[in-house]
């Protein structure tokens, strides 16, 4: 088992490494002269050359990559091309804000979806299950910003005005100081992840309930509570962990649209701003950060799966008899 886990970790490291190469290639090497992009079309040759030198664009590619990677690993995330401030200082508070948003979504959305999914599986094909299945089927295809706008229309502008339509705070203040701005973004994200987590939990639970060992257990005359809690749930844990980790991983990327929509001062909005002005160090730092979180969450999902499956934890020992 330890070998399996180590292999997965090693693969994760390798993936992050490859991701860094891709990010670097995308921003530094591909067509679109970075210097011209930053300075605009009107720049003259001298300033272009100066900027190129400042950005080390004249050095060969592998050297530039090495330098960039080395800087990263020592904590130097570069300097923003917009205002000259260190990237690390700029994205610090944004990281916190995005973490709050995603954390709240996870805390509320995931237990809710899992509980409802299990309930629907236990009451399969009855009224509750049918209604939920239809609702999630409809909700599943809708893009997240559409859900967001729908909520804004209903709760913030057109139908009623209970909540603020944008979630902006003055720079420097914590988002937690005005909790009402968190309601709509979190609600949007919860609605977005609900269909997926609900459906996966329900399917997993149904699979378990339909299995031969559940039939055998019920033929032993065990009470229903024991059947569900002791026999069924432990077998539903492993796939559910995967689903949860994948959900968080998705959120790491999906937050961009929502933050942009609500004007929320998180990493997503930071990325959009950086893209608009071609602030390459910012773009690199944020993309690398989000992608790494994504990879780490995927690895965590796999490792947790391994740890939870008894079969993978220990080998076969009584086989000889």
């Amino acid at each position: 088992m330890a070998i399996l886990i180590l292999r997965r970790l090693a693969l994760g490291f390798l993936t992050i490494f490859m991701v860094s190469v891709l990010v670097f290639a995308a921003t530094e090497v591909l067509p679109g002269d970075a210097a011209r992009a930053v300075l605009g079309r009107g720049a003259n040759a001298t300033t272009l050359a100066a900027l190129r030198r400042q950005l080390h664009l004249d050095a060969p590619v592998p050297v530039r990559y090495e330098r960039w990677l080395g800087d990263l690993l020592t904590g130097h995330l570069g300097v923003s091309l917009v205002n000259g401030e260190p990237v690390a200082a700029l994205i610090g508070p944004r990281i916190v804000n995005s973490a709050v948003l995603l954390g709240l979504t996870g805390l509320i959305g995931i237990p809710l979806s899992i509980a409802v999914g299990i309930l629907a599986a236990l009451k399969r094909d009855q009224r509750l299950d049918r209604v939920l299945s239809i609702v999630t089927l409809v909700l599943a295809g809708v893009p997240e910003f559409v859900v967001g706008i729908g909520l804004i229309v209903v709760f913030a502008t057109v139908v009623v005005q209970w909540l603020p339509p944008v979630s902006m705070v003055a720079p420097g203040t914590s988002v937690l100081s005005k909790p009402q701005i968190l309601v709509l973004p979190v609600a949007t994200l919860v609605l977005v992840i609900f269909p997926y987590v609900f459906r996966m939990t329900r399917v997993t639970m149904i699979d378990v309930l339909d299995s031969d060992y559940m039939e055998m257990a019920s033929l032993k005359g065990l009470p229903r509570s024991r059947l569900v809690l002791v026999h069924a749930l432990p077998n539903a844990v492993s796939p559910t962990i995967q689903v949860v980790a994948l959900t968080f991983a998705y959120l790491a990327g999906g937050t961009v649209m929502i933050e942009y929509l609500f004007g929320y001062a998180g990493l997503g909005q930071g990325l959009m701003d950086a893209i608009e002005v071609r602030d390459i160090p910012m773009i690199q730092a944020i993309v690398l950060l989000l992608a790494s979180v994504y990879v780490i969450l995927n690895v965590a999902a796999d490792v947790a799966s391994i740890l939870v499956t008894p079969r993978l934890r220990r080998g076969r020992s009584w086989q000889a008899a």
Partner: protein
Amino acid sequence: MRSPVSSPVSCGEAAVVVRGLRVTTADGRRCLVDDASLELEAGEVLGIVGESGSGKTTLGLALLHHCRRGLRIGGGTIRVAGRDLGGAAPGDLRQLRGRLVCYVPQDPASALNPALRIGTQLAECLEPRARRDRTRLLDLLRAVKLPPQANFLESFPHQLSGGQLQRVAIAMAFANRPRLIVMDEPTTGLDVTTQAHVLETVRQLCGQHAVAAIYVSHDIAVVAAIARRVAVVYAGRIVEIGPTERVLRHPAHPYTRALIHAVPDIDDATPVSGIPGHAPEAGAESSCCSFAPRCTLAVDACRERLPALVVIAAAHEVRCPRSADPEPVPPRGPVAVRAASVRPLLAAHGLRAFYGRREVLHGVSFAVGAGECVALVGESGSGKTTLARCIGGLHGEAGGSMTFHGETLPLDTRRRSAAARRRIQYIFQNPYGSFNPRRSIGASLALTLAQFETLSGSERRAKVLAALDQVSLPASMADRYPRDLSGGQRQRAAIARALITDPELLVCDEITSALDVSVQAVITVLLSELQRERGLAMLFVTHNLAVVRGIAQRVVVMQEGNLVEEGPTDAVMRRPQSDETKRLLRDAPRFTAKARGCDTL
């Protein structure tokens, strides 16, 4: 040997009484079990025999008043030790299950919860007070001959072998000394020795604790070894029920007779005969005798009304108007099996095979003569399938050498010449995967033909139809798709596909194991005929020794990747030399009377 059992009589009523049991789909449209009635004394074992789709498993589960999703019990009464299971409230029924009636499943590996320890699952069967009692649990283990150790209780299902898991399941069933145990083919998938041990354990426990047991199986031989009485099920109805000895020697129902003729006997070389046609689908109810379309004795009365269950002798009932004079099964005489020519067709020298780094075949050498059928037998894991695949060229990681017609034959089919590829044909075990589901049977056969010959469209079609005709498949089959065919028909189509290239050697990899007994017999008869008519050489892989006599001239016995015995069939079966062959012959279940000791339990 079995010890006589004194069966305690309880107020005159038998331990288990079932009357008119009926199981239908939830909407009532299809009926899976109709009008099933039986009685069991305490300590008695009743075997329920049937083929796939006969409803035997559904019947077995229904005796616990349980059905799978989408089914419901539509009528009838079940009384166990005087308690009416049908009338019990759901809460009471739950109490009764596990204490009064217990179940041993077919596949213990999937029937035990992979996330819970063995000890936990065993303890659940006991009353709450006794759950913590370690000694009680260890006693249970001892009773089924499992190591009575604490760390065995701590282990998880995946750490145990198939035989051990099945013993755990049996321990769970007997834990509370129930009145009735229903066992659903519990020894399928186990090797013969383990199977023999498990059957012995069950026999003992039933006798010891005066437990009535029902043993559901498709294997008559196994049922004969363990059950005192037997019920034969066809299309959801019990067509014959009576003492095992009598039913097997004087079968009254035409289906029972045909079934017995279809089962190969390990001690007897009489050829088997199959039942033409195929069984009706599960749930297809009919208001007349379901077997009539396939019955050689059928009269108009059979096709108009449902025959009632009639008592024809002591405790022997049958559902057939033509059973008036039950004839004993004619003694089978040996059949003259064609003597093989001495000319060797294919010879293997020191064949080795690997799965990754593990060697699974350790230097096997033998030869197949032209026109000769060689049976390759062994338990699962013996390497017989791997050996067959090597000869067929389908196993990549192999070593050693082979010759065909005296010339070197490459081990990998990709390196073989087209001539070699067409002369050696391979037929797979699973009838459900051997044809591309998106092509008609005729197109698949034509494709094989096109690979080796260039012919015009009409010539190809003619050859395809000729091949189908050889295996007794009608021409209309050529335009059908695989999903329209039954398992037996698909295997015949696979044989036709092999024959269309005019081969010299057929490698048959357990091609009958996935089929019902009556269909198996059809296939083995067909193969014997083909062998005689066309002088085909065959390599016939099987784990069932009984089949060997009717089809093979020589036998090769495999054990753990080694060839342990080889010789003419008769010699090997009568005077086995190696321990492995002796073990296989000794532990194989038999159903002829002369092999069983006493004829009462």
